């Protein structure tokens, strides 16, 4: 992005858009970092009007204190060496060299301690992106430039230790220096002329990259949820139907290590809750022999469903999507055959199709990084580890139904337990995450930043309930969130989402029942909006209301009682 484009994006922000108030704290003139940061945020929040406040010049602590107040729930802190000690920059003449090193180290240590204390005061409802020093240290050390000095190492150690301690903070995300090194070469970052003349130390390209990185941390894109992989010349090297399961390979000696690395990557993704499936054209019996080889780097029980036959892969992908019950836009399909990719892409245009680069090492290296980027999530939650289990659980439900059990028998025998947590704490990031990533059972499709969500939930008249579920097949974790305002005998619901993994268990009925009972409501009003994807909740409401749901649709307690099916859940209540 060029500076002109950044300014144009900011200029074209919707005048009447809801403001997105963002703090940018840095110790130098923010100038074009602010412009690029604003532009990238604006692109990520097209319907909002991004407003950046930079506080007072060189007053990082004062600026940081804005966060969490006056509608500022989002912010970025950009630290450079000169913010930790002015002698580590070029705009102050405080002395360089061995003589001042001890004093600089003491100063940096104290400054970082101060920052640490400030950052720990950030309310858990806020979000902060943190950038550690990106510019080179000045040449004020006794070694030649190609030899690192002990003092430089000590400085880096202090910064890394500071970041390491902050990394678990639920509100803080830290820019990955390694990625920054790739996107913005260190030698091109510093603008000596601009720093001395204006106090802005970054070259425009570096300001753009850093602004993008910070905005990306504050507006993370939705991670993909599932990966469907081919087998031959993808999960392993070789055509198993031709060479046999003992001759397929994924190791250094066979020069097929990349396939082993791919397996290893899939194993890591599975461990973080990514769903894995196979779509392969093969003879199932033969392919299964490959999948059960003990040296495979991913356990077979991490992969579900497995579609191995000679039918078109688009059909396999369709069935896998149905079993997973997630949107095609959450799924990646990997195959070494451009023809297979094209066939799947034509049938499922929203699936991201990736060519497995089996014979291009550089492309292979990039491919592994891309998988990380597509599936990476800011934090892992307990629910991530339940995902595959709950898909299998759903399958068991279906199997039982196909085996002749009626819905009532299934639900009665499920030993289901529903936990209602009233007013969950702001530190529970799963609540907003669930609201923002749920499409199908979503009352109106509204998305919120952490700050926006908590701004309303902090209102004493607001009721927020997080709902968890488990049954004899295992836990589903936190699967629903509902939020509303009580006014006399009416509850007005403005947000209600439930994970598709929890469908068919009457949790939505139980939720309404608890709301009616706990709050003595006579009516519940729904701020419903139809979206391209929320047919499941529209169907549910239509059935309950007896008419097409609209914004402001009202459900009476009497009507609800008429429509309420038998519920079998054991209830647990928690107060956040």
């Amino acid at each position, binding site marked *: 992005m*060029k*500076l*002109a484009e950044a*300014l*144009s994006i900011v*200029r074209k922000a919707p005048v009447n858009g809801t403001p997105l108030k963002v703090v940018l704290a840095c110790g130098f003139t923010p*100038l*074009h970092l602010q*412009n690029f940061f604003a532009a990238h945020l604006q692109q990520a929040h097209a319907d909002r009007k991004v407003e950046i406040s930079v506080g007072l010049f060189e007053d990082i602590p004062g600026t940081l204190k804005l966060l969490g107040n006056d509608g500022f729930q989002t912010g970025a802190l950009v630290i450079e060496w000169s913010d930790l000690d002015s002698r580590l920059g070029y705009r102050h003449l405080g002395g360089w060299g061995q003589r001042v090193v001890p004093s600089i180290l003491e100063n940096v240590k104290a400054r970082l301690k101060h920052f640490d204390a400030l950052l720990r005061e950030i309310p858990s409802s806020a979000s902060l992106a943190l950038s550690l020093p990106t510019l080179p240290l000045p040449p004020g050390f006794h070694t030649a430039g190609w030899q690192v000095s002990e003092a430089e190492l000590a400085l880096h150690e202090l910064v890394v230790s500071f970041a390491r301690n902050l990394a678990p903070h639920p509100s803080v995300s830290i820019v990955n220096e390694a990625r920054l090194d790739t996107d913005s070469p260190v030698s091109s970052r510093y603008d000596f*002329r*601009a720093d001395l*003349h*204006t106090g*802005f130390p970054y070259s*425009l390209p570096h300001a753009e990259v850093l602004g993008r990185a910070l905005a990306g941390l504050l507006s993370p894109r939705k991670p993909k949820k599932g990966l469907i992989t081919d087998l031959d010349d993808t999960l392993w090297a070789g055509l198993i139907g031709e060479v046999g399961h003992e001759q397929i390979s994924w190791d250094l000696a066979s020069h097929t290590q990349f396939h082993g690395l791919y397996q290893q990557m899939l194993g890591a993704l599975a461990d973080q809750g990514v769903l894995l499936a196979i779509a392969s054209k093969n003879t199932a019996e033969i392919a299964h022999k490959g999948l059960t080889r003990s040296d495979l780097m991913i356990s077979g029980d991490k992969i579900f469903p497995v579609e191995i036959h000679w039918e078109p892969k688009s059909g396999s992908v369709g069935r896998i999507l149905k079993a997973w019950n997630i949107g095609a836009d959450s799924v990646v399909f990997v195959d070494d055959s451009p023809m297979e990719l094209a066939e799947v892409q034509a049938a499922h245009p929203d699936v991201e199709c990736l060519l497995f680069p089996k014979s291009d090492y550089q492309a292979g290296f990039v491919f592994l990084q891309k998988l990380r980027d597509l599936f990476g999530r800011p934090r892992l939650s307990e629910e991530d580890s339940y995902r595959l289990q709950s898909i299998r659980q759903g399958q068991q439900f279906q199997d039982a139904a196909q085996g002749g059990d009626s819905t009532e028998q299934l639900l009665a025998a499920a030993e289901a337990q529903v936990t209602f947590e009233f007013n969950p704490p702001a530190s529970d990031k799963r609540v907003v995450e669930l609201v923002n990533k749920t499409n199908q059972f979503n009352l109106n499709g509204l998305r919120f930043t952490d700050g926006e969500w908590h701004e309303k939930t902090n209102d004493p008249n607001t009721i927020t309930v997080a709902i968890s579920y488990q049954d004899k097949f295992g836990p589903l974790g936190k699967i629903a969130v509902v939020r509303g305002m009580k006014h006399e005998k009416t509850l007005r619901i403005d947000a209600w989402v439930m994970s598709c993994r929890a469908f068919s268990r009457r949790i939505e009925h139980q939720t309404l029942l608890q709301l009616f009972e706990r709050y003595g409501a006579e009516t519940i009003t729904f701020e419903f909006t139809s979206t391209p994807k929320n047919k499941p909740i529209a169907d549910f409401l239509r059935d309950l209301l007896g008419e097409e749901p609209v914004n402001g649709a009202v459900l009476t307690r009497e009507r609800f009682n008429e429509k309420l099916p038998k519920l079998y859940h054991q209830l647990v209540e928690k107060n956040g």
Partner: protein
Amino acid sequence: MDNSETRLVKIFENVFPDLPADRIANASQDSVQNWDSVAAITLMNLIEEEFGIQMDFDDLGELTSFQKILAYVDGKVAQTA
């Protein structure tokens, strides 16, 4: 308008979005309220980006109007051609 003038007008539109198009050619630091030091540096960076030239910070003090900047840019571009 010649090419460099058109390009410079677009830069001014970006930096001073509230400035009516018909006033850009006569714009000066005195007539444009938002023409402060930040705007001057932004103008400079956009001109460098657009024209592929390097401006001297010491010249900024003299570049107080659209017409002066246009003449300066044309001179720089001619030097580098």
